[in-house]
């Protein structure tokens, strides 16, 4: 008798595990009533809690837009801070639904790690920051320097390649988080801090004397950063991808968080109508309702607004649009047509 109970419990638990597997990410998110977003451990401008403990930033904004699209509430997001070492296991093990944490899109990650990169929300490149008093004006003068670097990142590999190709030597000081890297760099334990230029700018903005530090002109790699989801749930990947495209297309078409209600009724541009759900029924094709994109844009603004509010040149981070301008403005942002 006891044996049967045991076997029964065993089978039941296996069945439950199997059911949890079978449920799609969208269903899981809807049942849970909130989105779990893998975020940075704290990078000003991109993803960090503010003084009230509310997460703010460019990547955080994307998660809020996604939550608004899927659940109708931009605040229904739990942010899980992940280091560069833990981020992929957290995503693969379903600990988070989406990873929006300046993660570079590479072949191995996309193909071998079985991740799906849905697009690029920030085109970045790796750069070097040094103190002004070091008197260095080019990365080619860094032979023999001590370099602080976050382990487990593409920067680590680019750094090794760059110094080898240029026949220079260096002393790597591996660190676990950006905060630790900044501390080591400010203490002078390394001459150079290297990571994506956007992150360098974000770190520098948080320093006591930002003027004492220069970012060298060399950009040594392509770092397309974007949201990542698990391989195998194509519907969820579509939702994340088209939420990103909706934000980008909204800027291109002039939809802002301010004029969105007005455009819903007054616009006669059919593409605006399709994005805002007054036409075409696109939301239902995704398994959402037709207001999804309108809610996302209303929550955080279009791509340009989100950029300007979090990391743009009016903020302490002070990043120019550069490559991240619309394709019509000479940048690389190009959303496929909503059709």
């Amino acid at each position, binding site marked *: 008798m006891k044996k049967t109970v045991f076997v029964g419990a065993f089978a039941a638990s296996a069945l439950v595990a199997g059911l949890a597997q079978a449920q799609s990410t969208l269903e899981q998110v809807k049942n849970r009533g909130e989105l779990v977003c893998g975020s940075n451990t704290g990078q000003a401008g991109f993803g960090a809690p503010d003084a009230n403990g509310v997460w703010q930033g460019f990547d955080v904004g994307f998660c809020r837009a996604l939550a608004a699209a899927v659940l109708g509430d931009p605040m229904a997001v739990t942010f899980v801070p992940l280091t560069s070492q833990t981020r992929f296991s957290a995503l693969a093990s379903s600990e988070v639904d989406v990873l929006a944490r300046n993660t570079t899109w590479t072949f191995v990650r996309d193909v071998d790690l*079985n991740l799906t990169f849905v697009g690029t929300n920030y085109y970045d490149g790796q750069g070097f920051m040094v103190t002004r008093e070091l008197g260095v004006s080019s990365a080619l003068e*860094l032979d023999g320097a001590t370099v602080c670097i976050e382990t487990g990142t593409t920067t680590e*590999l680019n750094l*090794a390649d760059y110094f080898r190709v240029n026949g220079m030597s260096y002393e790597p*000081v*591996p660190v*676990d988080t950006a905060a630790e890297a900044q501390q080591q760099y400010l203490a002078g334990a390394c001459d150079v801090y290297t990571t994506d230029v956007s992150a360098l700018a974000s770190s520098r903005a948080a320093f006591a004397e930002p003027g004492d530090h220069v970012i060298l002109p060399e950009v040594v790699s392509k770092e397309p950063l974007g949201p990542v989801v698990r391989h195998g749930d194509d519907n969820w990947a579509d939702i994340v991808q088209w939420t990103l495209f909706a934000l980008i297309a909204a800027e291109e078409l002039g939809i802002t968080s301010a004029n969105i209600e007005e455009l819903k009724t007054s616009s006669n541009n059919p593409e605006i109508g399709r994005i805002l759900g007054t036409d075409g029924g696109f939301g239902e094709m995704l398994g959402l309702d037709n207001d999804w994109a309108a809610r996302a844009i209303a929550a955080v603004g279009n791509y340009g607004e989100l950029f300007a509010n979090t990391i743009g040149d009016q903020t302490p981070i002070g990043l120019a649009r550069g490559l991240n301008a619309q394709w019509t403005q000479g940048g690389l942002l190009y959303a496929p047509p909503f059709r």
Partner: protein
Amino acid sequence: MSSTTDPRQTAQKPGKPAFHLSMLLYDQRYRSITIQIFALFLLMLGAAWLIDNVINNMRLLGRSFSFNFLWQSAGYDINQRPIEYDSTMSHGRAALVGFLNTVILAILGCIFATVLGVLAGVLRLSNNWIVSRLITVYVEIFRNIPTLIWILIFGAVMAESMPAPSSFRGDDPASSMIFDAIAITNRGVYIPAILFQTDLGSLTLGPVAPSLNWLLVIAVIIAGVYANKLLIAHATRVQNETGVRPKTWWKTLLILFAPVALVFLALGAYLDYPELRGFNFAGGTHLRNSFLAMWLGLSFYTGAFIAEIVRGGILAISKGQTEAAFALGLQPGKTMRLVILPQALRVIIPPLISQYLNLTKNTSLGLAVGYMDLRSTLGGITINQTGRELEGMFLLMLTYLAISLTISALMNVYNSRIKLKER
């Protein structure tokens, strides 16, 4: 129950009644075996379920289980390299570098922790009030704060409070080197290195190639220690026969140091001093912050535990032993060395083995200060770059298990040599 009532059968097999299946549960002789087999069966079932689960999930994710990544190019650099390594070499090679770094840290840590621990353990029993209280403070502070915190504290102190290499520059530098030979900077300590003019080449042992020069030096040192042991044994024999112990201290010094000095002279050994070149010091040996933080943190922490083990071992020896030794006219130092410690060792060694194992396993905290041990290379960067968590963790577990079992085996051999011989 017919068999037990049949008198002929009982006579044929005394005490062996026929076996019934129900006896597995109701007979005390078999019940424990039944329970054990049942428990083992459950355990195996559980393990099979876990393994099956992993295989299934891997298949669902479209992942394979393969160690091929070990032969792919690693692509990252490692700062502390006991063997030749650059970023074009394989992940396997990087793991080997990490393994050697782990072993180096474990060996040096165990040595320093033992020295600290024995000293502190003996001194805590000192009659001198200040000394014993100071040691109590050391033991209690280090024992009651987690290792990781100590490692971070040592790392932060080194990085934040020591001068940068640039402050050694200029005609009137803010900092200067000790004896023009040792530079203590916020990037680590630079000490002179011993180099040889004559190079005997290196021995190729698979992936590692130790220098023959150093192998020769080590061989000479081992030979010297062995010769010295023979000398002492001889002196003891003479003392037993004649009652007079021949003077051996100058012979010991000669045997231990003269051959090594000769080898150094013959190979043209010289000191390579560190000097400021470019951004950093070049030349000499660079003891990195990460290494020093790990070494000091682990040694002081484990040393505090060893101190308590040593103190416990000494206190376990009855006071009568000391009194008897004093009555024979032995001085306190000799009493400790000849009477107390040899007996105390029997109590000390078994718990000491666990401390060595703890220290070795704690080296895996290296990533906290960027020490490139096995956990940071194979278990950190390699796993992250290749996405082979399962394989990497599996290798990591096997390696730590192998290291720990080796230490355990060596220490058990030592333990069986010093334990009370029962004849």
